């Protein structure tokens, strides 16, 4: 089921949580709402789920206005940040809840409920825990039960609020691959909220980057990483070096007050100046991290460090040491007028 959001606004008192949001979610895709805490991503998720009401704007599911429909009629599965499992019910009863509360004429037989719950528990690979209580489960297990519970009612849309937020790094990695595989199996339109860029880039089909209640960019993981639309996105996703055009970025051929954004792996280093716009620098630090080598350099008249990433191959071909004097020149960069700069001061 597709979701259309038009000119959505939401304020809490004087605080504007969502500022004129427009978004199209395609049927069957897995979408990430990515942004720092307080950017409005959770509010947006809760409004889609019917947990909160927007002040103004349109919300359409498959072209149909659902603002007047309350949460239980939206056929939306919601996975809460802290799972919100019913503490007094077993795992089985938790998953069965949505089936048991259906109106009498729609309700399945007990045997059918049993079959479907076990099927779901197998899907999340936790059938052996069916008679446990939530308090007896690990964080990762609770997460998967919460998901199974949300899936039990066969939602057309699945919403997940920081699904991996409360888990440790290892479990987190495993679970997000698992979520991706599950989504590929089920193809339910899914939206998840996260503040972890790696998570968003790895799992989602498309990423919505949000900041201060506004959408900064919508795109595939590759697009938002390789072609950030705003300075904020540049800074929030991946590492970036800032060059102020006046001093250190003659190659931008920009004469106003502007800043160039350059990814660390988009900078060439050479012993001789590549051309007359190359910047002379001194190597301050060299550190090999796995398959890449990170080099920190500084321009002569500046103490600001510039970060450069080289593949190990490339580094081995022309090794560097602290104190070496070299020239750098970006292969790729993007220039933003200084006027836009206030956008990312929050980060």
């Amino acid at each position, binding site marked *: 089921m597709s979701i259309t959001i038009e000119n959505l606004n939401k304020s809490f008192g004087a605080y504007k949580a969502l500022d004129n949001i427009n978004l199209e979610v395609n049927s069957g895709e897995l979408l990430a709402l990515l942004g720092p805490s307080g950017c409005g991503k959770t509010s947006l998720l809760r409004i889609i789920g019917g*947990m909160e009401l927007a002040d103004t704007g349109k919300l359409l599911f498959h072209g149909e206005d659902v603002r007047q429909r309350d*949460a*239980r009629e939206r056929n939306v599965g*919601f996975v809460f940040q802290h799972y*919100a*499992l019913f*503490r*007094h019910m077993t795992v089985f009863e938790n998953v069965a809840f949505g089936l048991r*509360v259906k109106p009498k004429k729609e309700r399945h037989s007990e045997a059918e409920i049993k079959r479907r719950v076990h099927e779901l528990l197998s899907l999340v690979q936790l059938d052996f825990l069916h008679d446990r209580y939530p308090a007896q489960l690990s964080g990762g297990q609770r997460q998967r039960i919460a998901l199974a519970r949300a899936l039990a009612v066969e939602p057309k849309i699945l919403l997940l609020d920081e699904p991996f937020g409360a888990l440790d790094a290892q479990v987190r990695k495993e679970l997000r691959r698992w979520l991706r595989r599950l989504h590929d199996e089920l193809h339910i339109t899914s939206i998840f909220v996260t503040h972890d860029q790696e998570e968003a880039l790895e799992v989602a089909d498309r990423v919505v980057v949000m900041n201060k209640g506004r959408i900064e960019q919508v795109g595939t993981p590759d697009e938002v990483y390789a072609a950030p639309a705003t300075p904020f996105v540049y800074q929030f996703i991946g590492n970036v070096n800032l060059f102020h055009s006046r001093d250190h970025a003659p190659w931008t051929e920009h004469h106003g007050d502007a800043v160039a954004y350059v990814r660390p792996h988009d900078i060439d280093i050479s012993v001789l100046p590549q051309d007359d716009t190359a910047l002379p620098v001194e190597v301050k630090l060299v550190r090999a991290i796995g398959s890449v080598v990170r080099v920190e350099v500084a321009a002569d008249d500046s103490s600001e460090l510039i970060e450069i990433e080289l593949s190990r191959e490339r580094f081995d071909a022309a090794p560097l040491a602290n104190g070496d004097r070299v020239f750098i020149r970006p292969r790729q960069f993007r220039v933003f007028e200084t006027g836009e700069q206030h956008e990312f001061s929050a980060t």
Partner: protein
Amino acid sequence: MSIAKLNNQATLCRRISTCESSGVTLLLITVALSYLVLFLGLPLLAVFVEAFSKGWALYWAALQEPDAWSAIQLTLIAAAISVPANLVFGVAAAWAIAKFEFKGKSLLITLIDLPFAVSPVVSGLVFVLLFGAQGWFGPWLQAHDIKLIFAVPGIVLATIFVTFPFIARELIPLMQAQGKEEEEAAVSLGASGWQTFHRVTLPIIAPGVVAAALFAFAVSFDQFVISYFLAPPGVSTLPVEIYAAIRKGFTPEVNAVSAALVTLAIKSLVEWQARRSGEPLHGAH
């Protein structure tokens, strides 16, 4: 060494960094216990000492008096009606106050607290003003031959009034602590309001509700002044019995009846305590 040992023994805290020194610990325990002994332990002891000063036989005789029996019955009837009524109110009020944000909440809570501050004398007076022969509803009641005041219904009504805040005040913080994510989850899974309440909320707060009920039951024993105003000449509640006996002088009989009451109260309180500290069977964390 000895300090660490004492700390281990005397305190529950997990790490030394967040513990008081053993001296402070002892001092605080001593202060707390002295206060409790002075204001609670000694009075209680006195009741029992007096009650049994003339031996068991008299104690039994006092309890077997028909007046005492009818008083006990009336007290129990009043409790049996007022507790469920206030329970329903308490749950509804706690649901509204704990799970929602709305304007005038402080005012509502204050109004719920108000019966605490109303002297039982005043509440007795109020019910006379309402239902007495000269009261608002007096003539109507007389015309329909309904006896409210100076009869069992009056006592029940008065008991409801006095025990009114207790259950709501017990349940509000409980429901607040529970949060509302689980209810939201239930709604998102398609549960109706009633289903959400009785399948999710109620089981979670059940131990608290039972505890609050027991508590209110114990509290409802204590309505002698009201009963004094409202009870018919022939009918009396246990506290009225006591009051009447007290008027005649401080007799072992009085103490026997109080001791029985106190014992009953202690029993329900201990039960209550066990339930409240027992937590829900499967704690959230």
